[in-house]
C-alpha cells in the first residue's frame, strides 16, 4: 500500500490535488511547506518528464495580453488569459509577416514645394508607367447615355451599363467580352454578384439577374423601380433601393427576400455599402443620410448631412469603414467620422455641385464635379479642419463629357474608371491601389477551378443577415458585466435567477422595504446631515401613506412581519460589514480630530486573527 502511494505521489502529490474539500486538513502553503525534493522517486522521474522551456507555463505572456482579473471562475479566467496572450503573440507575428509582402505600391512624388503632383497629366503618367500598367488608361466611346461602372471584388472584370439599356461585362485585362446586351429600356445600375459569373441590372421596372453570357436568369419582381443596387459578398445579399423608397434585401443563395424596409424618405438615388460591417448607407432627397441593417426596422443612424438632396455617399475601406464622405447638390463635400457623428470632420465646396465620390482601397478620395475629376489623399482629408477649404489636391483630370455619372477605383490597380455621357474612361492614379492581394479573398489571377472552389467555400461561410450590426467585432466578444449583483464581500453566492422572489425584488430595487425596521442600520451613516434626514423622513412618511391605501392590508402587515422574522445570512453579512465600516470611519474621524489616540502596535498582534 505504501509503495502504491509513493508511486502516485511521484506523479501528482496529494497536496497538488485539485482544491476540493477540507481546507483545514491540508497543510497551509507557507514557509513550513514540505517539498517533494526528498522523495527519491519524484526526483528520478522529474528529470525525464520536464516540459521544454518554450512550453512551460512560466514563459512570460506579452504585456498587451489582458488579465481578466474581474472574472471569478478560475478555469474561465485562465482560458481567456491564455487566449488573449495567444492573440497578442499572433498579432506580433502578423507584423513580422509584412516582410513577405513583395509587391511594390505605386507612387507619385515631386521634389520641392514648387512642383505639384496635380500638374502631372495623364500622358506623362502613362508614359512613365510600365506596359502592363499603361493598359489602364482607356477611353471607350459609347453611345447610350451616362454610364455606370462596377468592378468585381478582384478587379479583373468590369460591368458597364448605359442609361438607355446598353449593358456589357468584360475582362478588361485580357480584353475579352463576356456579354453585351441592348435591353432597350432605362437601366439605372448594375452590380456583379459573388463573381463575374452573375450580374444584376436595375432596369426600368424590376431587377434582373443575368449570367456571364448575358442569359436572363431571374426577374426579381419584388424589387420595383430600382435605382441603386449593392451586393454584400459575405452575406450573399442583393440590396436594392427604389423610387418608392423601399430598401430590399434578397438572399441570392436561397432566393428569399430577407427583409424590406420602408425608408419613408421618398425616392432614393444614392446608396453605398460599408465593406467592413455590411451596413447600407442611403442618401436621401431631404439631405439626410441613413444607415440600415436588416434586423432593424428603422435606420441605425440618421444624419442630416446636407442642405439639399444628397448626391453621393462613399465609405473609406482603408480605415475599416471609419470614415464616410458625402456630396450634396448644395455643392459641398463632407467627410464624416462614423464613430462620432457630431459634425463633419472636413467640409469643402466642390465647383459645379452634384459631385460623385469614391474612396480607393488605400484611402484616396476621388470627387467628380462639373467637368473634372479630383483626387485627394489620405492624411489631409481625415484630419479635422474647420475652414471650408478643399484639401491639397493630389491629381486632377478634365473630362469634357458631362455629366460624370459614376466613379470607381479598380481594386488592386492604380486605376480610376469614370462613367460619363459619352462612354467610359479610365485614368491612372499612382498609389491608390492595394498592391498585395490575398488569394483566399480575392485573386485577380485565379483560374476557373479556384473560382469554383472559392464560391463553394464562401457559400459555406455565408454569414446570416441577422449578424449585420454597426460593430462587426460584436460577434465573439464578451458579454458586458451584469448590472444586477448579489455580491457580498466580492463573492457571488447565489445567482440572481435562483434568489427567492423578495430577494430578487430587493436586488433590482423594486422591493417594498418601508417597514423592515432595518432601514437605519443598512443605510449609510455617512450622510448624516439634518436636511438629508428630514427629506428621507418625509419620503418615508409619504410612502407609508401610500401603502395604507388599497385592500388586504392585514395580510400585507402579516407578510411584512414574517419577513422581519426571517434571519437571512446575506442580510446579516451586509449589516455586519456596514457596521464594521462605520466603526472604522468613526475611529478614523476621532483620530483625525484628536479625540482618540491611534492604536499602538503591540507584540501580541502576531496572534491576532486577520479577518
Amino acid at each position, binding site marked *: 500500500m505504501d509503495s*502504491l502511494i509513493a508511486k502516485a505521489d511521484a506523479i501528482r502529490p496529494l497536496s497538488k490535488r485539485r482544491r476540493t474539500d477540507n481546507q483545514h486538513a491540508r497543510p497551509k502553503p507557507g514557509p513550513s511547506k514540505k517539498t517533494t525534493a526528498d522523495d527519491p522517486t519524484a526526483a528520478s522521474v522529474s528529470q525525464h518528464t520536464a516540459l521544454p522551456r518554450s512550453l512551460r507555463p512560466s514563459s512570460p505572456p506579452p504585456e498587451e495580453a489582458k488579465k481578466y482579473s474581474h472574472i471569478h471562475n478560475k478555469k474561465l479566467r485562465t482560458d481567456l488569459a491564455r487566449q488573449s496572450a495567444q492573440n497578442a503573440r499572433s498579432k506580433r507575428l502578423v507584423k513580422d509577416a509584412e516582410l513577405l509582402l513583395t509587391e511594390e505600391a505605386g507612387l507619385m512624388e515631386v521634389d520641392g514645394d514648387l512642383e505639384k503632383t496635380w500638374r502631372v497629366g495623364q500622358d506623362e503618367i502613362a508614359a512613365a508607367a510600365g506596359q502592363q500598367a499603361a493598359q489602364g488608361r482607356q477611353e471607350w466611346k459609347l453611345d447610350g447615355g451616362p454610364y455606370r461602372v462596377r468592378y468585381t471584388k478582384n478587379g479583373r472584370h468590369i460591368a458597364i451599363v448605359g442609361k438607355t439599356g446598353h449593358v456589357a461585362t468584360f475582362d478588361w485585362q485580357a480584353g475579352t467580352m463576356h456579354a453585351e446586351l441592348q435591353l432597350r429600356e432605362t437601366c439605372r445600375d448594375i452590380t456583379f454578384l459573388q463573381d463575374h459569373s452573375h450580374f444584376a441590372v436595375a432596369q426600368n421596372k424590376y431587377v434582373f439577374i443575368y449570367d456571364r453570357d448575358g442569359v436572363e436568369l431571374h426577374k426579381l419582381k419584388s424589387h420595383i423601380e430600382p435605382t441603386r443596387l449593392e451586393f454584400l459578398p459575405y452575406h450573399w445579399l442583393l440590396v436594392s433601393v427604389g423610387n418608392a423608397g423601399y430598401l430590399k434585401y434578397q438572399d441570392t443563395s436561397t432566393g428569399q427576400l430577407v427583409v424590406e424596409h420602408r425608408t419613408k424618405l421618398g425616392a432614393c438615388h444614392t446608396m453605398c455599402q460599408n465593406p467592413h460591417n455590411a451596413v447600407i448607407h442611403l442618401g436621401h432627397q431631404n439631405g439626410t443620410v441613413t444607415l440600415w441593417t436588416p434586423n432593424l426596422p428603422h435606420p441605425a443612424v440618421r444624419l442630416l448631412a446636407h442642405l439639399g438632396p444628397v448626391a453621393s455617399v462613399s465609405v473609406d475601406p482603408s480605415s475599416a469603414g471609419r470614415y464616410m464622405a458625402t456630396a450634396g447638390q448644395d455643392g459641398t463635400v463632407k467627410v464624416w467620422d462614423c464613430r462620432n457623428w457630431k459634425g463633419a470632420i472636413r467640409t469643402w465646396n466642390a465647383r459645379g455641385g452634384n459631385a460623385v465620390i469614391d474612396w480607393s482601397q488605400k484611402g484616396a478620395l476621388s470627387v467628380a464635379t462639373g467637368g473634372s475629376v479630383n483626387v485627394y489623399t489620405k492624411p489631409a482629408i481625415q484630419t479635422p479642419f474647420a475652414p471650408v477649404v478643399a484639401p491639397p489636391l493630389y491629381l486632377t483630370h478634365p473630362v469634357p463629357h458631362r455629366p460624370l455619372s459614376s466613379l470607381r477605383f479598380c481594386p488592386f490597380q492604380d486605376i480610376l474608371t469614370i462613367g460619363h455621357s459619352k462612354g467610359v474612361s479610365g485614368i491612372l492614379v499612382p498609389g491608390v491601389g492595394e498592391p498585395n492581394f490575398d488569394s483566399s479573398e480575392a485573386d485577380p489571377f485565379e483560374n476557373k477551378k479556384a473560382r469554383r472552389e472559392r464560391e463553394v467555400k464562401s457559400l459555406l461561410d455565408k454569414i446570416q443577415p441577422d449578424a449585420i450590426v454597426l460593430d462587426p467585432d460584436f460577434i465573439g466578444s464578451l458579454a458586458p458585466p451584469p448590472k444586477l449583483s448579489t455580491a457580498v464581500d466580492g463573492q457571488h453566492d447565489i445567482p440572481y435567477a435562483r434568489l427567492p422572489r423578495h430577494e430578487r425584488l430587493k436586488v433590482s430595487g423594486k422591493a417594498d422595504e418601508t417597514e423592515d425596521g432595518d432601514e437605519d442600520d443598512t443605510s449609510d451613516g455617512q450622510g448624516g446631515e439634518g436636511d438629508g434626514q428630514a427629506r428621507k423622513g418625509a419620503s418615508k412618511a409619504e410612502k407609508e401613506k401610500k401603502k395604507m391605501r388599497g385592500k388586504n392590508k392585514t395580510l400585507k402587515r402579516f407578510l411584512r412581519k414574517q419577513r422581519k422574522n426571517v434571519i437571512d445570512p446575506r442580510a446579516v453579512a451586509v449589516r455586519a460589514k456596514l457596521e464594521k465600516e462605520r466603526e472604522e470611519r468613526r475611529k478614523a474621524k476621532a483620530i483625525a480630530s484628536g479625540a482618540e489616540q491611534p492604536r499602538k502596535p503591540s507584540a501580541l498582534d502576531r496572534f491576532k486573527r486577520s479577518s
Partner: protein
Amino acid sequence: MVKINVLQHAPSSHLPARPGDPTPTSRNLDPLMHPFARARERTRALNAAKMERMFAKPFVASLEGHVDAVETMARKPDTLDIVASGSWDGGLILHDVSRRKRLFQVDNAHKGKVSGVCFGQQGRLLSCGVDRNIKLWDTEASLDDDDFGAGPSQRKPVSIFPGKFAFNSIDHHRYDPLFATASNLVQVWDETKSAAISNLTLPTSTETVTAIRFNLAEASVLASIGSDRSFTLYDIRTGKAERRIIMQMRSNALSWSPTFPTSVLLASEDHNLYTFDIRSLNTPTQIYKAHVAAVMSCDWSPTGLEFVSGGWDRTVRIWKEGRGSAPEVYHTKRMQRVMSTLFTGDSRFVLSGSDDGNVRVWKAHASDKLGIITARERAAIEYRESLKSRWKADSEVSKISRTRHLPKPVHKASQLKRTMLEAQRVKEERRRKHTRAGEHKPKAERKKVVITEHS
C-alpha cells in the same frame, strides 16, 4: 522632376509557369483584407458542430451468441480486441471484435449465471459462477481450427476449483499465477492449487462482496466493494484489509485507473459514479452525475482520460475524467439494461453487454470516421476540432454540441429527478433560513458520500 511608379502585377509571378503546375498563391495578413473574419469563423464553427452531430453514428456492430443477459466481460491483456463475455444462461464466449467472430464458446460453462470472467496466464480463461465453481479454460487450442460456429459445445475445463459459496466476481493477479474471488468472503487462489490459499476479510463483516479488482500499478493491492455499502482495500501480501469506507449507497462495479495508480472509479447504486483517490478516502475527487438509474458497470479507457459506464436506465455513457456532467450517451431501442461495459485496448471502441443478450460495439467518439483518413482530411478534422473548442462558449455552437436525443423514459426520468432534487434543495434552504444562524450548515455534496472511514 516627378517620380512616378504605377502599380502593376507581373503575371509571371502569379500564374503557373508550366501547364499543370500549381497556381502560386499570395497572402496578405492585414485584417482590412479579411473583413468579417470573426463572423465567418463563427459560421465555420457552427458548421463544424453541426457536422459532428450529423456524422455521429456510434453503433458499429452487435455480437450475438448469448441467450440471456450478458453479466460480465473481460478484455484479454496484451490484445486490442479479444474479449470474453459471460452470460446469465451459463454461456461463455470469446469474441474477436475486429473480425466479429467467436473464437471460443461454451454453452454451459456454469449452472446458473456466469458471474465473472478474467484472463489468466498463457491466454487461459477463468470463469466463476453461482454454482460455486471456478473453471479454468484453455482457449489457445481452439484458436487453430477456424470454424465460425465454434467447436463442440461440450468443452472440458482444464481444471475446476470448488468453493463453498456462490461467487460474484473474479480477477487475476497481473504477474503471478494468483487470482482472487469475491463471494461472502474474499479469497486468494493459486492456479495450481485446488483450494484457496488465503481468506482476506474483516473479522466482523457479514457482507457479500460483489466485485473485486487488483490494482494495475501495485499488483498486490486488491479493492473490493460489498453489499453493506463498503469499499475495502486489501494487500494480499499482508493478507489483511488495509482501508475501508462505508458509503451512503452501495456500489455495483469498480475499476482502477490505468494511468493514475491510486485513482479508483466506483459505479454506485445512487445513479452516480465516483472517483476516489485512495490517499484520502474521506471524499471523492469527483462525482459524475447523469445516469437516471443505478449504474451497473464501469471501465476506464486505457488512456485514463475517459471511462465508460452502463446503467439500469438502458444507456451507455462515456465520461471525460474530471468532468462530472454532460457525458456522451448511447442508446438504442432494443438495448435493455446494460450490465457490463468495456473499453477496447486501442480506446477507440466501447463494448456493452445488456439484458437482451447482445454484446454491442460502439465507437468511443461518436463522429469518428473509421478507415483510412488522408492527410488533408485529418487536417480538416483537426481544424474543426479547434474551431469547436475556440467557439464553445458561443451559445448556439455549445447548444448544438451539447444536445443529445434521449429516449422518452430516460428524458422523463431525468426531468423528474431534477425536480425532486430541486425541491429537496429548496426545502433544505428554507429549513436553514428558519433555524438559528450557524446551527444548520449546508453540507457539500462530496462530503455526503462517505459515512465512515476505517483504516
